[in-house]
């Protein structure tokens, strides 16, 4: 029993934080070889922490688990009916039951997050007829990790705002209502994190779905409170909160809605 990140994992998080903070986005160059689920969780928590856009879950975690030797560029994959559509990418795959196929995008769908364009897919040639079952779960878990990072970032920016913004002659962070909102946000995120790490260790469907449920609720609750405490400025596309908020709302129901994952947890109990 040693339920903490290793020094290497903590270092990896630090490196990625600096990398993203410097504006770099060519993630594949840094984490090409990462396959251990706990390491991947560390990576995707930082992806969320900086609201990095693009089909990274698919390209870096799911597609490498589905099939070896995929080509360059970004990849997206749909698992209907659980994940009915794909996000914009260079290449598309489709998993139907045990069959993995190439696919191409057709209709674009209205997306909650405009930076996450959604497409329906049409099936192409078969690539494989045995699909590793953990590929989908890996996508769910990375989505949970990303939500955790998004939540953490929004808590950080809202705490900073509450210290800086004054109203009625004092920082809004001095109002008890603001304190209690942010305390609740912290509690939600703090207790969601061990579920994500635990699921990366066990990789059971039960634990992965539980992590997705908890992070979806904790991160979205964080987004709502962040918006409320930022006030009108948070409602503008110019404020960075908007990117975090819209991405959180999209990922909350991506890779299966909270309701779907609660059903999976109950089934596994």
């Amino acid at each position: 029993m040693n339920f903490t990140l290793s020094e290497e994992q903590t270092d990896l998080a630090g490196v990625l934080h600096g990398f993203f903070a410097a504006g770099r986005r060519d993630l594949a160059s840094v984490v090409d070889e990462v396959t251990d689920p706990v390491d991947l969780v560390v990576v995707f928590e930082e992806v969320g922490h900086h609201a990095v856009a693009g089909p990274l879950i698919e390209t870096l975690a799911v597609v490498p688990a589905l099939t070896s030797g995929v080509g360059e560029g970004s990849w997206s994959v749909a698992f209907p009916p659980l994940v009915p559509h794909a996000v914009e990418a260079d290449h598309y795959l489709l998993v139907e039951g045990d069959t993995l196929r190439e696919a191409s995008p057709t209709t674009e769908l209205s997306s909650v997050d405009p930076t996450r364009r959604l497409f329906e897919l049409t099936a192409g040639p078969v690539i494989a007829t045995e699909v590793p079952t953990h590929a989908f779960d890996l996508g769910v878990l990375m989505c949970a990790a990303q939500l955790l990072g998004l939540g953490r970032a929004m808590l950080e920016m809202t705490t900073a705002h509450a210290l800086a913004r004054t109203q009625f002659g004092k920082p809004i962070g001095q109002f008890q209502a603001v304190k209690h909102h942010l305390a609740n946000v912290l509690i939600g995120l703090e207790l969601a994190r061990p579920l994500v790490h635990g699921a990366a260790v066990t990789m059971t469907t039960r634990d992965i779905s539980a992590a997705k449920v908890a992070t979806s609720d904790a991160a979205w609750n964080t987004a709502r409170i962040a918006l409320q405490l930022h006030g009108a400025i948070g409602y503008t596309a110019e404020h960075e909160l908007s990117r975090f908020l819209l991405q959180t709302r999209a990922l909350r129901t991506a890779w299966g809605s909270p309701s779907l994952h609660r059903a999976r947890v109950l089934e596994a109990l």
Partner: protein
Amino acid sequence: MDLSLDAATVEFQAEVRSWLAAHVRPLSSMDTASGFEEHREWERQLASSRLSVVSWPSEFGGREASLLQWLVFEEEYHAAGAPGRVSQNGIFLLAPTLFAHGTDEQRSRILPAMARADEVWAQAWSEPEAGSDLASLRSTAVRCDGGWLLRGQKTWSSRAAFADRAFGLFRTGPGERHRGLTYLLFDLRAEGVSVRPIAQLDGEPGFAEIFLDDVFVPDHDVVGAVGDGWRVAMSTAGNERGLTLRSPGRFLAAAGRLVELYRKNPDPALRDRVVDAWIGAQAYRLHTFGALSSPLSGPAASVTKVFWSELDVALHETALDLLGEAAPGWRDGWLFSLAGPIYAGTNEIQRNVIAERILGLPR
């Protein structure tokens, strides 16, 4: 107790319903230049059938409808899926102030043009350093020959990107916080005005910043007495928080759509949230009927403001949870709902008001 409609109201309801059935059509977003003009045109169509401001006196373009008839109008309007009202800020925020504090000259000059959407009004309350704390406003109006010169910056001005005129509070004299403020009207195309649109979460400029550099306002565009602006603005602020800003019809229509959506995408785990949205809309409707006979006090308007804004968010969140990432037909309403707990006084401020002014807890 009696919930039935009188004969005149039933007749009015039938007229509105058939007019809307014949005229409602989808318009582009009012936060684009062309969509704004489409919405102005729609307002003119309403006005030509005396349906843009039904509760106003006839001389200003209304038909002296009762409050009940206005509620019925709103229920029909939203049930028909009719367009958002680009004239809303003027009709619901400025007009009540003019009725209460304006001069006859102001009313006859301003209201008919507002009713026909010849002039669309933007609100200019907030400033960068004053969000919930309106009393800390800094923009000034300085006396000049025949009027006033405005200087300063307003922000989160809804509709200002494309509107014609605006109303707001300006510091005209010494005095701390609430004192020395004056309620003024100004032209958004006057010399010295710069408008910088602000993109909302949906990417469209629903808000704008307004920069004012010695903008002239003639004396006849002062509303109420000089230095009395806080009282003038606050006496109708309940309108923004309460009844007139968000009519129950809007939530009843949205709750009805949510029930339909649930029937197409049934997820029993979300059933309670769907039903609660309908119950909430119905509660707000009946509560409003109750207010017809015993009008709401200012603090009571805080109760409804918190209620409808949270109802609206919960309702739209439920739709998104039913639909997932691809939520055609619900995204705009959802984004709009998220602003509800923030604007017109944040819900945190409203809860303070409720606790202190209704329950009597100490400040």
